[in-house]
C-alpha cells in the first residue's frame, strides 16, 4: 500500500530520471537498500491534500471565485486545477532542489564515477527537480479530477462543472 503513490509518480519517471526516482524511493547508497524515507508518500500526501483543499474550496467555499454562479464554467475549474497544480509543482521542485543543493542525495545516485573515484558524469541536475515538480503538477491534476468527481455533486453553484 505504501508504494501506491510512488508507482503513480513513476508514470512520469521518464521526465525527472531514474536516479532522482531512486532517491525519492528512499534508496541509500551506504546500505544499498531502500531504507530511507519514501519521499513519494510525503510529497504525494501533500499533493493530495492541496488538491483536496482546492477542490473543496472551488465547490463549497463561500468566497468570491469559489462556489459562485459566475465561476461554474469548465474553464474556471481548469484555472483552479492549474493553481493547485502549480502550487504542487513548486512544492515538488523546492523539496527536491533543497535536497539536491544540500547534498542529501546519495553520491551513487548523483554521479557516475570511474574506478579511481573520479566523476565521469553527473546523473541528477537541477532541471530534474523542475521536471519532478512538473510530475507533481500532473499527480496533483489527477487527484484534483478524482476529488472533483467525488465532491462536486453537493455543490450549490458548481455541481455541473466541469462536466455532467
Amino acid at each position, binding site marked *: 500500500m505504501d508504494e501506491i503513490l510512488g508507482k503513480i509518480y513513476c508514470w512520469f519517471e521518464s521526465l525527472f530520471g531514474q536516479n532522482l526516482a531512486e532517491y525519492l524511493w528512499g534508496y541509500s547508497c551506504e546500505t544499498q537498500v531502500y531504507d530511507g524515507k519514501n519521499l513519494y508518500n510525503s510529497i504525494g500526501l501533500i499533493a493530495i491534500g492541496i488538491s483536496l483543499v482546492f477542490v473543496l474550496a472551488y465547490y463549497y467555499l*463561500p*468566497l*468570491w471565485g469559489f462556489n*459562485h*454562479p*459566475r465561476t*461554474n464554467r469548465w474553464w474556471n475549474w481548469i484555472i483552479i486545477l492549474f493553481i493547485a497544480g502549480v502550487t504542487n509543482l513548486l512544492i515538488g521542485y523546492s523539496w527536491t532542489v533543497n535536497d539536491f543543493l544540500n547534498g542529501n542525495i546519495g553520491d551513487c545516485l548523483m554521479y557516475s564515477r570511474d574506478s579511481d573515484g573520479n566523476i565521469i558524469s553527473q546523473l541528477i541536475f537541477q532541471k530534474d527537480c523542475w521536471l519532478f515538480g512538473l510530475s507533481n503538477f500532473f499527480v496533483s491534476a489527477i487527484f484534483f479530477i478524482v476529488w472533483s468527481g467525488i465532491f462536486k455533486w453537493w455543490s*450549490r*453553484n458548481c455541481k455541473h462543472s466541469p462536466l455532467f
Partner: protein
Amino acid sequence: MSKLYVFGIGGTGARVLKSLTMLLASGADCGVETIVPIIIDRDMSNKDLSRTKLLIEDYMIVNKIAKTNGSNRFFKTNIHLLNNELCLQLKDNTQKFDEFIGRNTMSLENKALVDMLFAKETLNLDMTEGFQGNPNIGSVVLNQFDDNDIFQEFAKDFKDGDKIFIISSIFGGTGASGFPLLRKILHTPNVKGADGKAFDNWGLVNKAPIGSISVLPYFLVGSPSDGSLVNSDTFIDKTRAALSYYKNEDKKIDTLNYIADKLTSTYEHHKGGDAQMNNAHFVELAAALAILDFVNPEKSSKNIHRDINKNIEKTTYKEFGINKDLSEFTFDNLTDETRRLIVNPLSRFLLFAKYMGYRVVSEQINGKEEFVVKKIKSNDIFEKENKHQPYSRKRFTEDFRRINSIQKLESIQAKFVEWLLEMEKQNRKFTPFNLLSSSATDFIKGDLKIIKTDNFMYKNWAMVDNELNRQIGKANKVLENDSRFIELYFKVTEELINYKN
C-alpha cells in the same frame, strides 16, 4: 371556492381589467379563487379591449401551470370566461341609433318627439364604435343585455357566496349609462331569458354582495379628427349629471368606490375601433385595487353591511388617494395599505421579467427619442446562464422557451413592463421603478430598501442565480418543468424582495 364576477363596462372597464390582470399575474392577494371578467362594450374593435382580451387569454394559459400546490403566487388566481367569451355581445347589431329606435317606422308625431329629444348627429351616430360620450343613447341601447347567452351563462354559473363588481367610467357614454342599468337588472327579480324561462340562480344574483367603481374624469381627449362626438369639455358636466343620478344607488350597492385625477393627460382623439388605445394610467391600477379591496376577507365587515335578510343596510363609499399631490410619484408616496398590496408583487414580477431579458430602452424613432420595451440579448440572463446553472441544466434548456405556456408567460412579462412604462408616460407619472436599469438590485426607486443586498459574495444577477440554485432543491420535484419554473422563480423573488411594514 368563491368567485368574483367583474363587469367591465366600456373602454375604462377594459383598461381596469387589464390592470387587474397585471396585478393577478404578479401575485397580488386576491380574496377569491376565481375572477370571471365580463366586458360590456358596443365597440368590439377598440384596441383597449383587444389588448385586454389577448392578455387575459395568455393569462389563462399560464394560470394552468401556476397551480403548483406550493408557495407560488404568480398567476395563482384563476380567470374563467363564461362560454369562453370575454365580451358580452349585444344581439342587436344595428349601426345607427335612429334605426335602433325604429324612427323611420314611427308616426309623424313620435318622429317629431324623437327629433326634439335627440340631436341630428346623435340620431345618425354609428354605434358600432360605442356611444361616444352619449349616456342618453347608451341607456336605451344597453337595455337589452339581459337577453344574452353570456348573461344566461352568468346566472347558471353563479353560486352562493359569489360576488359581483362593476367597473365603469362616469364621464363617457357606455360606462355612465351601463352601470345603473346593469345594477338594476342584477337586482330585478325573476329575469327571464330569450326563451321566456327565468334565469337559474337569479335569486342568488339578486342577493349577492355587489361592489363597484365609478371612474371620474382622469384624462382628456384632443380635437376630433374623425367626426367623433366626444368632447372633453363636457366631461365634468356629464360627471356631475351622472353623480346626481347615482344618488339613487345608495343602499343598492354594498361598496361604491370613486376615483378621479385632476392632473389629466390628453389622449389623441379617436371615435373608437382599432385606433382607440390609451396608455395605462395609475387610476386604472388604483381602480383594480378597489376590486381586490372588495373581496379582501379582512375588509368584509367594512365593505358589506347587510341585515339578516341579506338586504343592504348601508352603502360604503370609498375614495383613493396618494400621500402628496405630485406629478411624479413612487411607492414612497403611497399609503402603507397600498404598499402592502402592490410593492412585493410588482417588484417581484418585474425582477423575474428583467431576468428573462425584458426592459425599457431608448430608441430613435422617426428622429425622436422614444422609450420602448425590448427583449435585450445582453440583458437576457436566463439565456446566458441556463446552460451553466444547476437549477436549469437539463430542465430549462433547449426547447424550454418554446413551450406554449412559457411563451405566453414571456409575452405577459413584456406587456407588464410596457404597462409600467405607459404609466410613466402620463402627466401624473407613476414611476416606482427605474425601467432603464439593467441591474437586479437598484431598480426600485425611492427610499424603500427591500431587495436583499447583504450578500457580499454574490452581486447583481449572480445573487439571483445563487438563490435559484439554492431554491431548486426545495421546489416540488413531481411538477412538470414549466410549473416548476414558475414556482422556483416565485420562491426566489420572494426570498430576495420582501417588503414588510
